[in-house]
């Protein structure tokens, strides 16, 4: 169920479904439901051949020899690739655009730093032939000792990441002097994005031009990487990605399997398809890094925080660097006069971890939002009340005003809908037969990340409208909200707008990550549509062939696809009639959100790196989305099994461009959070570092039967400092705070603090 509290400025107030803020259903829905939507690797190309990867089975060492003769002789085999057979690729720059070292790039590895690293590949006429031949390849290794994960005795304390240090006041001294002190360690395991659609691509070369059909959260960034690997101009690489079967952060970067497929395609002069197997999706790219945090809080008897000391560690790979910012929520959620947060990274023999829904904020909130609950029990104050007492009236770290922070409203509205007031504070005080019942609360937040985008809007001869952008829709609703934006700005029905996305030939867009795309692209489409409308009205007024020419008007009204004078006293014609009258077959305008005098180089950097993203604390404000989750769990007293039975979440994402789609993303985040709290964990074998549960039967994500009705409530108000149309971020916010709310509820139910995710049954019996 979904409730709209209109007084909080949900932008759907009064809006009809097709306008911005309306509840228009996903325009791509019918194509997906009927199977008409064609995903990247479903393209049918003449001459297509198939590649299959062979991965390392040790975590550390060196490939001694690769026996390929039997595979080469197998039916249908066109080529067996090994580390030595891929020559001439160059190392590409990273996503910050840091110039790369002038070094060759080897997508197949001889030096092994993790189990599952790609070592060889087979290309054959059919997929089955490639699989059969791949099984004939024998690889021998010289194995060296590996550090399999963060808990490995050899892992050590890691490397300090100074850029993550945040300190003010004298936190250790204030902690030592505080009358109430708590200190606890919180751990999260490796977690995986597990998108339904596995990673894969089809690569085709025509001379020195490369086309790649590949699910992508960032066409222009990935095109840049391919161009740099193969030393061809950026313009020569075309990425096509019309639909994406889930990314959750994992589909933003070109990966080594892409280089292998594109290399094979060039070598063979034929299009090559390569799709990771489900087990390979656990090692072909990184999931969320495992993390450890200690949170110490010093407070007064009345629960007022005097000091927070926070230490975090996340794992990274042997030769890559992934920092999961663990102090990101710790440093802004509560007011404290003294604060210290530092972080290390530890190198382990794993693939380099990557972005997964709310990287940083997600584990960070697990630490601080559990710790504040522990403090609440220590001083005997209601967990909701203690959060209000320590409410941060401004950003405690940046010391700037919040652009908007409807967190108080979220607490109040959520508590009321949930019925929090009826909670009995004592652990184990609520039960139903064999089930212990617990109620928990936690807050979440995600920064407003801003970048820039471009779009083209065309009004065609038949009055229909086309929008083009190289941004993407991975299910979050880009197709729909851009149609709504163009429809509202131009005054045409949304079903006469066709939105085209997912082709790097279209006007460019930066990465779809960090919940930034909606804010960026609605802004660009709004600008392009406004300028198309200006052209249309300008021509209608000034063109001698226009029926409005004689009117001497200085403006006209366009609504529902028709043009009329504001007072309704003149002609009233459709856009199509006007265009044919003045002899035009289209009006076209482009729009972007780049600063006025941006150079071509600025634009290239903006779209192909993340280095131009605007800090969320730029200028006078600190910009974030906020939420509060209220969750009921039931714990079987004998079996220790936990199920979530009720969720009420109140969220502030600013203005919602389409509440229906925003709610659906919030619910998706909450569901993923339930999985994170109770089920998800990549289990690492201590001997060879392989992920033991590398498939969807053993890596458990929630099923429908695990998910109760979820009530999400928008408490946001338009935030003019965050985006052109007033929205903040939607996609990542809602997962943040779910796991601590569940852990807190489990404590309330059972009296046991589980500080290691996931909360599996043996931790409770």
């Amino acid at each position, binding site marked *: 169920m979904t409730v709209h509290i209109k007084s909080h400025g949900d932008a759907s107030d009064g809006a009809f479904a097709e306008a911005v803020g309306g509840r228009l259903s996903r325009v791509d829905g019918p194509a997906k439901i009927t199977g008409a939507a064609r995903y990247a690797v479903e393209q049918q190309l003449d001459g297509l051949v198939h590649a299959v990867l062979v991965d390392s089975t040790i975590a550390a060492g060196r490939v001694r020899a690769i026996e390929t003769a039997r595979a080469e002789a197998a039916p249908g085999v066109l080529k067996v690739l090994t580390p030595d057979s891929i020559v001439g690729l160059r190392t590409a720059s990273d996503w910050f655009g840091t110039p790369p070292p002038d070094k060759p790039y080897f997508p197949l590895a001889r030096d092994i730093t993790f189990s599952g690293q790609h070592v060889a590949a087979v290309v054959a006429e059919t997929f089955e032939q490639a699989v059969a031949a791949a099984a004939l390849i024998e690889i021998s290794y010289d194995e060296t000792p590996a550090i399999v994960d963060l808990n490995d005795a050899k892992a050590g304390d890691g490397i300090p990441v100074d850029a993550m240090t945040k300190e003010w006041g004298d936190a250790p001294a204030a902690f030592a002097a505080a009358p109430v002190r708590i200190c606890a360690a919180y751990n999260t395991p490796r977690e995986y994005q597990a998108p339904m659609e596995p990673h894969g691509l089809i690569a085709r070369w025509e001379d020195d031009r490369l086309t790649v059909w590949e699910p992508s959260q960032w066409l222009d960034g990935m095109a840049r990487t391919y161009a740099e690997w193969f030393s061809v101009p950026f313009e020569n690489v075309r990425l096509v990605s019309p639909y994406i079967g889930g990314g959750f952060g994992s589909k933003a970067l070109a990966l080594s399997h892409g280089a292998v497929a594109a290399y094979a395609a060039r070598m063979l002069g034929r299009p090559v398809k390569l799709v990771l197997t489900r087990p390979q999706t656990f090692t072909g790219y990184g999931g969320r890094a495992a993390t450890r945090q200690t949170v110490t809080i010093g407070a007064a008897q009345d629960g007022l925080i005097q000091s927070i000391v926070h230490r975090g560690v996340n794992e990274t790979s042997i030769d890559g660097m992934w920092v999961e910012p663990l102090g990101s929520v710790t440093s802004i959620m509560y007011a404290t006069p003294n604060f210290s947060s530092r972080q290390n990274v530890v190198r382990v023999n794993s693939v380099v971890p990557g972005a997964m829904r709310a990287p940083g904020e997600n584990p960070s909130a697990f630490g601080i939002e559990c710790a504040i609950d522990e403090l609440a029990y220590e001083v005997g104050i209601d967990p909701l009340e203690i959060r209000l007492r320590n409410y941060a009236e401004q950003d405690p770290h940046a010391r700037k005003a919040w652009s908007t922070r409807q967190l108080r409203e979220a607490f109040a509205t959520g508590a009321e809908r949930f019925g929090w007031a009826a909670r009995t504070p004592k652990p184990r005080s609520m039960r139903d037969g064999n089930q212990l019942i617990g109620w928990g609360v936690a807050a979440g937040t995600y920064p407003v990340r801003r970048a820039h985008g471009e779009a083209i809007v065309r009004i065609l001869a038949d009055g229909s409208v086309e929008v083009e952008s190289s941004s993407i829709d991975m299910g979050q609703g880009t197709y729909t909200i851009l149609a709504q934006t163009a429809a509202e700005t131009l005054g045409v029905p949304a079903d006469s707008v066709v939105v085209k996305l997912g082709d790097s030939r279209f006007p460019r867009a930066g990465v779809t990550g960090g919940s930034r795309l909606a804010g960026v692209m609605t802004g660009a489409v709004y600008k392009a549509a406004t300028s198309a409308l200006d052209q249309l009205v300008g021509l209608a007024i000034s063109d001698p062939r226009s029926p409005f020419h004689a009117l001497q008007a200085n403006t006209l009204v366009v609504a529902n696809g028709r043009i009329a004078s504001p007072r309704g006293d003149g002609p009233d014609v459709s856009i199509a009639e006007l265009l044919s009258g003045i002899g035009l077959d289209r009006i076209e305008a482009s729009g972007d959100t780049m600063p006025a005098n941006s150079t071509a180089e600025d634009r290239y950097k903006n779209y192909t790196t993340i280095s131009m993203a605007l800090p969320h604390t730029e200028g006078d404000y600190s910009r974030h989305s906020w939420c509060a989750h209220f969750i009921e769990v039931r714990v079987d007293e004998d079996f220790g099994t936990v199920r979530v039975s009720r969720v009420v979440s109140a969220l502030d994402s600013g203005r919602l461009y389409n509440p229906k789609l925003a709610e659906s993303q919030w619910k998706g985040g909450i569901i993923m959070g339930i999985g994170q709290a109770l089920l998800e964990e990549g289990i690492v074998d201590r001997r060879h570092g*392989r992920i033991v549960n590398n498939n969807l039967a053993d890596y458990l994500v929630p099923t429908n039967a*695990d998910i109760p009705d979820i009530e999400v409530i928008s408490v946001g108000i338009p935030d003019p400092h965050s985006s052109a149309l007033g929205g903040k971020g939607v996609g990542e916010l809602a997962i943040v705070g779910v796991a601590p709310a569940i852990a807190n509820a489990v404590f309330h139910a059972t009296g046991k603090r589980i500080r290691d995710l996931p909360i599996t049954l043996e931790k409770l019996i």
Partner: protein
Amino acid sequence: MRDFDYIRPATIPDAVAAAAQPGSAYLAGGTNLLDLMKGGITSPERIVDITRLPELDRVEELPEGGLRIGALVRNADLAHDPSFAKAYPAVAEALLSGASAQLRNAATVGGNLLQRTRCSYFYDTASPCNRREPGSGCSALHGENRLHAVLGWSEACIATHPSDFCVPLVALDAVVEIEGKDGRRHVTLEEFHRLPGQTPQRETVLEPGDLIVAVRLPAEAASFAANARYLKVRERTSYAFAVVSAAAALTVEGGRIRAARLALGGVAAKPWRARAAEALLIGAPAEEASFLRAADAALAEATPSGDNAFKIELARRIVVRALTSALAGTPALMPALPASPFSNIPGARHDA
């Protein structure tokens, strides 16, 4: 997947003859076999498709009482057959608690009995595994073994049999009807699966070519209909194998237990009939104290095979709960979440 021959015999004798040749495998619903072939865990040279064989998809009442369930009856069809569910409610509940709706629509009775273990190392062809490659070693013994066996295991293999269906079946004295080179024979389900010993690769008593044609339930099995339950502890509510499970069936007269059946799932390489516990229950008062004693007896021989001591305590508790639930009576309607201790959650959905 490797190349293989595909044979679709028209008669049972043809099927048996074809499958008796080395390197053959029967194909029923394919939900387990095809996964194993795609992963390279098994690579049969010859697939004998039995899905078109006549008369194996029937459920028949036997003249002498009891029921004969054809090997090709789909798991979902059996569970949703109203007269079957009424007479053998714990079996229907076990079936509906297994896998997902899609898998249950495809999976067959014979295939369910013969499904292979879910031990991760069995699936990981880069790891030694005695069951997959005799003599190569057991990776689970010193590896990840949280969900492995606590009863009947050996150092050669600590895997469990994952079936739900088999647990109430073994409790109710089900018999497997097998057609082989030398004709037809009957083996009790209790003897059908083997414990690993030194030969974990020999999972059942079947010989090459042996075809399961039916599973029989004796007349007495229906006498427990009023007090029979299957309960399954799993980490997520649906589409998950049992951590431990139990089937319990009682007949009670004047507050005393007249007959008792008890079996455990997820604890051993076979569905585990708890005969010592049954013996203690028969004649005992129908109350918690008796159930606690039965639970201790059922797990008396249990030892952890690794990081899984919690399963022993969990199994004890599920025995008590299953017996308590059976005593309370078979629910008139199949619970919304079959076999789940959480079926009473408000709004629980019927899609387990």
